[in-house]
């Protein structure tokens, strides 16, 4: 299962989760196996960071391309949320902690 965390930094598991989804700088994508162990960590740029408008939608598009199942951020704008709902990616609200700590909460969701 792939979980994407909206982060402002690219430190991977130690990066702090961003308050915003659509305009976060990076997505830290953590792949876990059935037992919950981390198999892979990848950091990609969020195209929504550069977008003038429609940032949330572009961000979701990128995550769909990456085959993400769950996305974690502090807040999701209404447009982004609508697209997330139809895409089947599960949004989870957490912010202010590092990816490592939020991973457990995301796995429970």
């Amino acid at each position: 299962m792939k979980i994407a965390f909206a982060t402002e930094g690219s430190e991977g598991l130690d990066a702090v989760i961003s308050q915003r989804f659509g305009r976060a700088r990076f997505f830290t994508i953590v792949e876990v196996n059935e037992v919950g162990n981390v198999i892979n960590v990848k950091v990609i740029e969020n195209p929504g960071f550069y977008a003038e408008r429609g940032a949330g939608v572009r961000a979701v598009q990128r995550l769909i391309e990456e085959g993400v199942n769950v996305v974690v951020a502090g807040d999701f704008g209404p447009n982004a949320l609508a697209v997330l709902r139809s895409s089947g990616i599960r949004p989870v609200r957490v912010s202010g902690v590092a990816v490592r700590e939020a991973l457990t909460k995301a796995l429970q969701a």
Partner: protein
Amino acid sequence: MVFEVVVASGKGGVGKSTIASSLAVIMGKELSNLVVIDADVDAPNLHLMLNVREWVDELVIRSARVAKVNADKCVGCGLCENACTNRAIKLVSGKCVINKYLCEGCGACVLVCPKKAIELYEVISGIVKVGLTEFGFPLITASLPPGRANTGKIVTEERNLARERFKGFTIVTDAAAGIGCQVIASLVGADLALLVAEPTPTSFNDLKRIHRLTKHFGIPSVLAINKYDLDQYMTDKILKFAEEEGIGVLALIPYDSNIPLSMARPTPFIIQYPESKATGGLIKLCTEILKILRNWDSWRREHRVKPIPYIPKVIKP
């Protein structure tokens, strides 16, 4: 402690900037660490109302991209014109020309061009500026190059700059009218929404819309009804709505003909007219906001907003 109050309304012209500028002046006297953000970048006016004395910093935002055709390589096939969803490309004298004001930088034309004659290049979306007002606190605003519009990107940069450059400061943000991209960008992560309404059906309608947005983000809202005595019936309707939704009404400000007069000078209303009809209501509003700020932790706990639950609907292809 970082605390951000965003002044929003949905409807334009109800008094956001008038209230925000007077609020800023009063709060600026009580707090040593205030920063004000003008998030209405299409038509900013706080730099005038708060009389910016000098500009101390600027940040050029170059995130937007626009496509341009290399005329030497273009063979005038017109595939790009077909691909463009904004109708920004036209065939002129056998060459494709892109209107940079219509182009959104999606890159579709770059992909379809068989001669690879089109490239995306960065344009300046806007310049975020930091100025020092005559009241001693800084103002963050932005100016736009002709043809570009205010965007969520610019507002986000303004708010990020406020947090980075003025760590720990209290922030008052004057949002734009409406509930679009730039207003959404103003609200994300804000602590308190000060909603402003006037007693008209249009303002009431827009109030409901902006409140739906603050509920979406789980941001507690408080309300000020401006020009309330112009229509008691509408004011009562709005008050009833506020009660049903749990929105605290902080002040009812009467219509004051000195307010439009005060706009002739670059000074906030309460400075020019310290004893006019609306002054009392404005001061009460500011006092209430400061009370909330000083008791933030307990006030926030009492007024927790239950965000609209995220129930993902999965559509399997």
